């Protein structure tokens, strides 16, 4: 499975539609404090189904929707899409290219889509379940979270091994 692109709109500080194109190898993301780098990592967590608002540094689900700036109004919806190359067939779905999309509205409603077909959150979970991708597998490590791998209780650390097994 290879990441192809991430599209972000209305998600946190990404008010305008932004496209991140991925290549193989090392992709560095740089910029000043508060520019939005960790928000990109949050967008990836979120589109893969993260439900723990604290893992996204929020207090409620709507905190991920662009809340406005001094010059711009808030928007009503956040949308993130992740497109992957599935020619290896690693994802249990019969497409060589897969796009997962998640939307959140101020009303509290959510939408989930796989290749533009509406689905449930759990369909996205199950799609990526055996790929080793995600926060709990420690393949997505949020800012300051690396140390937690060591401060975790032995029982919590066990979950990582079970995941890898």
């Amino acid at each position, binding site marked *: *499975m*290879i*990441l192809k692109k991430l599209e972000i709109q209305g998600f*946190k*500080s*990404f*008010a*305008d539609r*932004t*496209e*991140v194109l*991925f*290549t*193989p*190898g*090392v*992709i*560095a*993301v*740089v*910029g*000043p404090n*508060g*520019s*939005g*780098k*960790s928000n*990109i*990592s949050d967008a*990836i967590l979120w589109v893969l189904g993260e439900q723990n608002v604290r893992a996204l540094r929020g207090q409620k689900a709507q905190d991920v929707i662009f809340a406005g*700036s001094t*010059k*711009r109004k808030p928007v009503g919806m956040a949308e993130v899409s992740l497109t*992957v190359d599935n020619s290896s067939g*690693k994802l249990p779905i019969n497409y060589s290219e897969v796009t997962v999309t998640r939307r959140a509205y101020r009303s509290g409603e959510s939408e989930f889509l796989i290749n533009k077909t509406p689905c449930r959150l759990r369909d996205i979970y199950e799609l990526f379940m055996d*790929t*080793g*991708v995600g926060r709990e*597998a*420690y*393949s*997505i*490590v*949020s*800012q300051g*979270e*690396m*140390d937690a*791998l*060591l401060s975790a209780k*032995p*029982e*919590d*650390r*066990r979950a*990582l*091994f079970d*995941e*890898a*097994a």
Partner: protein
Amino acid sequence: TRGVFEETFEAVKKSFAEMFQRLFDGGKTELVLVDPENMLESGIDVLVELPGKKRQNLLLLSGGERVLTAAALMFALMMVRPSPFCVLDEVDAPLDEANVERFADVIQEFAEKSQMIVITHNKSTMEKADIMYGVTMQEPGISKLVSVKLSAVAEMN
């Protein structure tokens, strides 16, 4: 199942020792089942001995030593069960020059098989990039992505 776990545990043990020695340029490690009688549920303890130092409780390790040890464990899990991609957000922040160099080398190696997305302020890590994105906030509160020419990193140094 017990057999599968045991196999995974032994593999991670071996990879952890290997990764730790790459990142610390030496040293020994142990992964120990808290309750060996109860393999299906037992927690896992991490014991390390930094090169030249005596084995100590992880708590007494320095900030940089803890992050590098955690990275070794994460890379070990990645070796045993590779993930198609990895996102690391400013993991290199507490590392000194020598350690960040070794860390960046390991990142580059994993990048041969997995996409490594690395958020960083560190020049040594940036030097390993195949592509680099700059996130800017020209308009206050609004994030914007720009491609950064990799030759620009060489100029920064």
